[in-house]
C-alpha cells in the first residue's frame, strides 16, 4: 500500500536480480560502491555516489510492516505511514510536501508485510532539506499529532482501499487469497490495507505506542544515493540524526508454522465479465533455498509467448485472456501464485485442467536448457536495468536498503546473483515437484455475478 499510488508493493522484496549466461561477449562489471556506518543511536546509514544527473535519493526503511500489527488493528502500519507526511514538531501540517515540491522534489512511502519505506527524490542542492524533514519526523512526529489527524488519514486510507479493492475488478479476491493461504494466527493472513472496521477502531493511543516501539533509529536504515559528496553527506547525517534517542530493541515477529495439508477450494462472485482462477502455494521465504528457483519457475511458466502456460492457455488454446505466475517473497515466508482469466465461453475448470497438465509435464521432465537460459538472460538484463535509477521504489537506494534489511548486508548483489547462476533445468523440475504439489494448495475461483 503506498501513499500516492495504488501499486501492489508486496513484490518489491522479490525483485529477481541478476543471472549469468553464456553471453556472446563478457558483460562488463557493474559497480555499486558504498560507504556504510552506524550512528551511536543505532541508525544504519549507507551512502552511494552516482553523478549521472544532479539528483539525490533519500530512502528510509523502518523494519515494521503489517506483520507487526496486533489483532483488531489490521492496516495500522499502513495508516501510520500516511501519518508520517502530516507534519512533525518543526514541520507544520502540510509543509512536508510544500517544502519538498518547492525544492523540485518528489516523495512517497509504501508499506508491505515486513517493512515501511519512505522515498524522497530531489535535486542535489536540496539534500539537507530532506535530512531535516526525515530526521524531524523520526524524532518528533508525536509532537504534532492531534487526534483529528488520525481521523483524516483514516478516511483517505478507506478510500484507498475502496479504489484498490472494493471498486476494482477482482479486487476482493486478492484479499481472500492471503486468508486462504496462511493460518488465521499468521500475520500474513490479514491484508496490508487492513479491514475497514480495524481502520475505524485505530486510536491516538495506538499511534503513540506504534511510534515509540517501531519508529526508532535502531529499527531504521537510511540510504542516500546519487550526486553526493560522501564526507559532507556523512557529516550532514550525523548533524541531523544524532540527537534522536535510541529506542527499545524490537522483538522479531515469531509467526506460527504455516503449511497447507490439503486442497482448499473456494468460489467468490464479483461484478466482472469473465471467470478468473487463482492457484496458490506456500513457498520458501526470501533468500531461503528454493526462493530463487521459484522465481525461475515463474519465468518458465509465464514470461513471454514461449513460456509453458502462456503458450498453452493464451497462444495455442486461446482459452485464457491472461496468465501469470509469480513468487512473492517475504521475510517470514513466500507464496507462489498462478492467476489466469478465462476467455468468454470458457471456464475456470478448463483453465485449471490445462495448467495442471502443463505443470505435470514439468514434473515428469525438466525444461529444455534453452528455456532456462532464456529466462536467466532476461534476469541478467533486468539487473542492469535496475542499476539505472537511484531513486523511487526499486531504484538503487531502495535496493541497497532491501539487501541490508534481508540480513545479507547491502553488498548482497553478488550473492543474490549467484542464487540464479547456479540453477539448472533439473532444479526447476525439483522445485516444482517439491513446492507446487497438486494436493496441497489453494484454489480460488471468481465467477461473474448474475447481471441484475
Amino acid at each position: 500500500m503506498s501513499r500516492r499510488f495504488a501499486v501492489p508493493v508486496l513484490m518489491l522484496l522479490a525483485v529477481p536480480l541478476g543471472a549469468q549466461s553464456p553471453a556472446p561477449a563478457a558483460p562488463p562489471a557493474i559497480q555499486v560502491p558504498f560507504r556504510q556506518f552506524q550512528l551511536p543511536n543505532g541508525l544504519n546509514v549507507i551512502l552511494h555516489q552516482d553523478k549521472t544527473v544532479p539528483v539525490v535519493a533519500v530512502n528510509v526503511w523502518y523494519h515494521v510492516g503489517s506483520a507487526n500489527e496486533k489483532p483488531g488493528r489490521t492496516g495500522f502500519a499502513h495508516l501510520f505511514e500516511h501519518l508520517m507526511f502530516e507534519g512533525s514538531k518543526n514541520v507544520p501540517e502540510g509543509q512536508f510536501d510544500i517544502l519538498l515540491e518547492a525544492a523540485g522534489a518528489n516523495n512517497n512511502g509504501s508499506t508491505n508485510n515486513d517493512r515501511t519505506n519512505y522515498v524522497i527524490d530531489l535535486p542535489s542542492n536540496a539534500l539537507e532539506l530532506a535530512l531535516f524533514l526525515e530526521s524531524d519526523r523520526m524524532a518528533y512526529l508525536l509532537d504534532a499529532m492531534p487526534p483529528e489527524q488520525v481521523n483524516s488519514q483514516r478516511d483517505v486510507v478507506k478510500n484507498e482501499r475502496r479504489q484498490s479493492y472494493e471498486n476494482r475488478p477482482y479486487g476482493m479476491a486478492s484479499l481472500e487469497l492471503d486468508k486462504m493461504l496462511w493460518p488465521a494466527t499468521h500475520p500474513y493472513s490479514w491484508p496490508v490495507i487492513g479491514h475497514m472496521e480495524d481502520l475505524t477502531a485505530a486510536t491516538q493511543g495506538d499511534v503513540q505506542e506504534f511510534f515509540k516501539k517501531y519508529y526508532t533509529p535502531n529499527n531504521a536504515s537510511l540510504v542516500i544515493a546519487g550526486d553526493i559528496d560522501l564526507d559532507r553527506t556523512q557529516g550532514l547525517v550525523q548533524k541531523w540524526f544524532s540527537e534522536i534517542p535510541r529506542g527499545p530493541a524490537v522483538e522479531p515477529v515469531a509467526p506460527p508454522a504455516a503449511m497447507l495439508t490439503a486442497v482448499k477450494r473456494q468460489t467468490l462472485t464479483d461484478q466482472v465479465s469473465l471467470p478468473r482462477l487463482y492457484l496458490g502455494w506456500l513457498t520458501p521465504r526470501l533468500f531461503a533455498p528454493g526462493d530463487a528457483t521459484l522465481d525461475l519457475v515463474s519465468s518458465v511458466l509465464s514470461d513471454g509467448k514461449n513460456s509453458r502456460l502462456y503458450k498453452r492457455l493464451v497462444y495455442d488454446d486461446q482459452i485464457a485472456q491472461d496468465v501469470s505466475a509469480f513468487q512473492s517473497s517475504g521475510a517470514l515466508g513466500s507464496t507462489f501464485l498462478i492467476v489466469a482469466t478465462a476467455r468468454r465461453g470458457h471456464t475456470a475448470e478448463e483453465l485449471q485442467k490445462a495448467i495442471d497438465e502443463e505443470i505435470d509435464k514439468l514434473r515428469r521432465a525438466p525444461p529444455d536448457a534453452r528455456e532456462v537460459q532464456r529466462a536467466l538472460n532476461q534476469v541478467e538484463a533486468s539487473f542492469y536495468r535496475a542499476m539505472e535509477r537511484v531513486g523511487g521504489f526499486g531504484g538503487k537506494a531502495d535496493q541497497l536498503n532491501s539487501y541490508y534489511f534481508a540480513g545479507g548486508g547491502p553488498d548482497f548483489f553478488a550473492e543474490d546473483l549467484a542464487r540464479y547462476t547456479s540453477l539448472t533445468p533439473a532444479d526447476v523440475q525439483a522445485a516444482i515437484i517439491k513446492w507446487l504439489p497438486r494436493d496441497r494448495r489453494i484454489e480460488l475461483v471468481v465467477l461473474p455475478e448474475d447481471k441484475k
Partner: protein
Amino acid sequence: MKALISVFIVLATTVGFAQQAPNRSKPPALGPAPQLTLPPIQKRTLSNGVGVWIVEAHKVPLVQVNLLVQAGSGDDPAGKFGVASLTAAMLDEGAGSRSALQIADDVEFLGADLGTSSSFDASAVRLNVPAARLAAALPIMADVALRPTFPQAELDRLRQERLTTLLQARDDAAQVAPLAFGRVVFGGTHRYGTSAMGTQATLKAFTTADLRSFHSAMYQPSAATLVVVGDIRTDAVLPLLEKQFGGWKAAAGTPRTQVTLAPQLTQTQVSIVDMPGSEQSQVRIGWVGVPRSTPDYFALQVLNTILGGSFTSRLNQNLREKNQYTYGASSRFDMRLSAGPFFAGAGIQTDKTADALREFFNELNAIGKPVSAEELTKAKNYIALGFPSEFETIQDLASHIEEMIVYKLPDDYFARYVANIQAVTADAVQKAAATYIQPGKFAVVVAGDRKAIETGVRGLNLGTVRVLTVDEAIGS
C-alpha cells in the same frame, strides 16, 4: 562463471563524537540549483535519408534503440479506428522469415526487450538490449519494423484479445469514466472520441489487408527516425544501423491525416453512467483542451501544477487532504498534435459524490482568480528544479528525444526548458486559466451507482443531467 558485479565497501567505524543539536527553527537553506548538463545529441543520416539521433550514455551496459514512425491513431481512416494500434501490435507477430514465437524466443534469449506500440501521434518499435548483444538484436528489430508478415492466425488471436480487453474495461469504473468522457467531449466520429484500440465493430472487421495497407502507406523512411541512446559509440553503431535500415526503400506513401480541431463544448452536460453497487464514483470533468503546439504550453504547465498536477495542488489538497472524499484528485491537459482533452478527475466514495463535485467546481472556478506569488513560485520550482530527474535512464532520454521529433521542438528546447518555466508570470497563468478553464461549459461524467448518487448530483444544478448505461456511454 565470474560475478558480474564488483562491490567496493568502505565500512567506516561508528562515529562517536558529540553532536551539537541542529537548528530546527527553520528549514535549511537550499544551495544554488544544480545545472543539468545533457550529453549532446549527435544527428546523422542513413543513406536512404532516415535520420539518426544518438546520445552516448555509458553508465550501464545497455542500449535503447527506438524506430519512431510519425503515424499513429490520429491517422486512422474513418471507419477504421484502431488500425494504427493493431498494426503496431501485429509487427512482432511474424516478420521476415520469423514466426511470432521465434521472434519472442530470439529476443528474450538475448536478454532484450522489444516493444511495438502506437499513440495518437506516432508509432514505434523500441529495443532495449545489453550492449554486447545489440548487433544480434538489430536484425530482428529491422524485420519487425520493416518486414512484418501479418499472419491471419495471429490477427485472429489479437482481435479476440482486444475484444476481450474492451469487454473487461466495462467492469471497471476507472476505465469506463475516461472512455465515456472522451465520447461526450469529442463525439463518436472525431478520432479522439474513441479509444486508440477502436471499437468492437472495427476490431471485428479488420483484415490483414487493412494492416498491410496501413503499414505500407505510413511506415516510410521519410516518416521515420532512429533514436539511439546508451552504451555505444556513434561511429561504431552507425554501420550497424546502415546495414539493417539503410536499404529500406521509400514506397508510394500517404501524407498524414490532420486530426481536425474538435468543436468546443458550450454548456455543462452531466452524464451519469450507471454501475450498480459501486463503492466509489469515478468522476471526469472537462472539455477540449489544447494541442501540443499551443503557445501557452509553459503557462499551462504551471497552471495545471497549481490546479491538479502535484500532490499539494488545490484539487488534491481540497478533495483528499481537507475533505477525505478520495485517495487522490488530479487534472491534466492531454496534449496531442490536435487538441486533446483537459480533465480533472478522481475516484470518490459513493456517498460523497455530490459534495465532491461541488468542491471540484469550486476549485475550477477559483483558479480563474490571481494565484499568489508563493503558490506560483512553488509550482515553477517543482517543475523546473525537478526537471533533471527526467533524464536519468536511457529510456527517459530516448522518450524525450522522441517528443522533440514528433512535436518538432527546437534543438535548444530542453536547454531552455527551465528558463521558459521560470519566465511564466502570474498574469500568464491567470490569462491561461480564463481561456482554458471555463467550468460553465464543462462536461461532467460520473461512473457510479446511479440510485445512490443521482438525487445529489441533480441537486447541484450543474446543467442537464442524463443517465446512461455502460453500453450507451461507451458504445456496445
